């Protein structure tokens, strides 16, 4: 049975079609979920894609967290369901309190679209099973607000827990501890600023995005399918976020 992926489309999302194409090319069954829905369909993985949800007005992700679908997304995550936020999706996860910290404007106060190198610092997550420890991935970034920040206590705890999953080799935006991708305490929620869906084809410059997207599909393929509603909340989730 194919892994089932749901990509949430907010008004102003713009990477949703790219996510659909990338996951389909990796063998997943993908459907789009409109932000105004109140229930998630039966999916193994929920993706919040990049873009400018609700125009990013007020603050990036600040309005999107109030979209009707977000209650169901939060429940899915709380039950241990897999949840991936890419770029604007990562910003929404921080605003929703599903991931710690906040994303500030880039240190250079400019939008940056560029290839970056990321080091995988934790291979024991649902999103990095295909990676070797310390493996460097070539994946592009495309954002104005990707400068991750958290208070010292939170940052230290996250570093100790291995929640700083991906780090920039050459920090492009001033992100604390070079963080490019972080997870919650139980690891089922990952947010990252780089766009793995843009790096799944040699013709586009890199296939390293498959390490991340493929890892989570591998995991889904290995585990017996359980409806999201049956997934048990993982202990430590609350304290970690």
């Amino acid at each position, binding site marked *: 049975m194919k892994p089932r992926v749901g990509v949430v489309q907010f008004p102003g999302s713009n990477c949703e079609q790219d996510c659909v194409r990338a996951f389909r090319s990796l063998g997943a069954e993908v459907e789009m979920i409109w932000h105004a829905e109140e229930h998630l369909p039966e999916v193994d993985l929920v993706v919040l894609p990049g873009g*400018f949800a609700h125009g990013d007005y007020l603050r990036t992700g600040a309005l999107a967290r109030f979209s009707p679908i977000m209650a169901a997304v939060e429940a899915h995550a709380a039950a241990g369901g897999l949840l991936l936020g890419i770029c604007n999706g990562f910003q929404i996860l921080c605003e929703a309190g599903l991931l710690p910290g906040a994303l500030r404007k880039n240190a250079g106060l400019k939008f940056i679209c560029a290839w970056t190198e990321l080091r995988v610092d934790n291979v024991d997550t649902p999103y990095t099973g295909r990676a070797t420890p310390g493996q460097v991935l070539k994946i592009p970034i495309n954002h104005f607000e990707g400068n991750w920040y958290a208070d010292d206590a939170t940052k230290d705890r996250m570093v100790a827990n291995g929640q700083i999953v991906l780090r920039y080799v050459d920090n492009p935006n001033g992100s604390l501890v070079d963080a490019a991708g972080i997870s919650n305490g139980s690891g089922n929620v990952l947010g990252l600023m780089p766009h793995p869906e843009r790096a799944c084809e040699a013709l*586009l410059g890199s296939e390293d995005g498959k390490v991340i997207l493929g890892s989570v599909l591998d995991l889904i393929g290995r585990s017996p399918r359980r409806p999201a509603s049956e997934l048990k909340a993982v202990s430590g989730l609350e304290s970690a976020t």
Partner: protein
Amino acid sequence: MKTVHRELGLTDAEFDQIVARLGREPSYTELAMFSVMWSEHCSYKSSRNHLKNLPTEGDRILVGPGEGAGIIEVAPGLAVAWKIESHNHPSFVEPFNGAATGIGGIVRDILSMGARPIALLDSLRFGPPDDPRTRFLIDGVVHGISSYGNSIGVPTVGGEMVFEDCYAENPLVNVACLGVIEHRLMHGRGEGQGNAAILFGSSTGRDGIGGASVLASAEFDDGSLDKRPSVQVGDPFTEKLLIEASLELIRKDLVVGFQDLGAGGISCPTCEMTSKAGTGIELELGSVHLREPDMEPFEVMISESQERMLAVVEQERVDEVVAVCSKWGLEARVIGRITDTGKVQVRSGGEMIVDVSADALAEEGPVYDRPYERPRWIDELQGSDPGAAPPADLKEAFLSVLSSPRVASKRWVWSQYDHMIFLGTIEGPGSDAAVIRLPDRKEAVAITTDGNGRYCYLDPYEGARLSVAEAARNVACTGARPAAVTNCLNFGNPEKPGVMWQFAEAVRGIGAACAALGTPVTGGNVSFYNETNGRAIYPTPVIGTLGILEDASAAVPMCWAEPGHDVVLLGTTSPGDLGGSEYAKVINGTVGGLPPELDIEAERMLIETLVEVAPLVSSAHDPADGGLAISLAESAIAGGIGVRVDDLGRDDLHLMLFSETPSRAVVTCPPGLLKAVLAVARMHGTPARRIGETGGDDIVLGTLSVALQEARGRHDDGLTKHLSATLV
């Protein structure tokens, strides 16, 4: 009444023509509508007589000039939309919103054809980059493009950035957009008596009143910055919703026709759509949703508020259309009905305030056969020193040209643009042409914009031909076959015979070159009155060429792939081609003499050679600004591999290195394929010879030797060193 029309930009003769056509004096609202529809910007009254001579037909051209965008068939059942527009004046007055709404406007042009916008190119021209006001303009324009383009999710994949003194007080912001027809081709026709006219998208406000007439169709002077209220304000979020809603309406077959609202506001699509269809329209102004209360009827009719579309819809589909718009959070209101009167009739508060023929507004504007005359100064200019004198130090000259703002890396600019979204950017910014794979297809198109105001200043006919040739060559370097051209013609005041001569000559040149290269003109835009305080810009036709590549994976890059590859020069260098060159300007401070002479037949054969040789070569790049030396350096820097070229001919080295002879390209290939490459060239009669080899850590051109690292450093910071610390 006699003076009001002048304030609106109409001449006394034009006013008399309106009175004669109506058989009465126009109402103020009618006059306002005529002023925008008969403006230079909307009516092409000075350019029409010349533009009609351009070649516009070809096997692949499904829609030519006159619609929202040209439509080109890529493969059976697969078509793309392609168009360029200028937003020069707004960008000078208010650079951020001027550039942003320039993007918004061209994107809606593409959308109005039923195409999803999938790529943007920006062709920008500014004054010297160390001038404070220019820096402000650059920062605003780049930020405006970045903010708007990134947000609507359309990649900005290339373009140009050129610096000349003549653009200091009249920058050029030309934006080209590529779209792909998703469901079916739409036409902007208001068919079907009784059908509803639905205005959807943003509300109508007081922004952009008179943008087409007061701003775009007049010269500037010192007071022009007071025209800021005529600049529109963009909202990219609403534009994104407008794109998705419009495409959903087409996908669900809910609309008969639609057109975007740009210059001229509501006046424009209402008269154009009905004029094309031979119908009429009745509007109720009270139904337009306004941004602020108490707007005057004329303001509602000509407001250029952004992010709006007008759809013509069968009555029984109205609810469904409103539902789709409302899903996307967009207001949609029926503001009128299609009639059979041939008229645009507008009611406000029960009173008929506009009652005019749609044809009179859309089609019967004045056409001027403006007098033109070759200016006397041109002889002196062409007879002046082209600036070919040798440099004091060849290496320093090479590095100076390589790091001139015009030649230097534009990474600072394009790294602020999303150039990757849609997973189609096979070759992006910094390439000769961007190669865009079409969504879920193997086919790609190569697109580029090229213009050379300096050449056109020296000789507008030859300069225009050279621009067409360069754009076609850039596309062919990627392996794509040039198929169609869109053009943006930026000139001074057409009421001056010298400017009109430049325009006539340039259009004649474009026509001749496009006909010879088999690339019809599918539309474009004319921007006159690019003058401030009486000083005109260089005549600057910008050519947007689109080429077709059957297999995206076969695209040829411009960078060296590997050391040890043979470097082959296609074409021949004429050592005297330095008139208007980057070398002459940077090293000798001169713009004079004659531009290089173009042999269009040689160009055509070179293009055939490039297309055919594509499967054999590892890179291709044409020598343009800065000549062969810069072309070789750019490929070396981009590939991170040095080069050794020994065979540069017997003339003075600086002439061979910096001459800008057209109809040349540098290709590389593995040694085993050299014979095959030379054979293809010979078959097409294109001169070809091996001039060197890739490899090493230096760029060695005859007796000139520069470390690759040093060259890269100068190329990388050539532009940014001119911009202030706060910008970098």
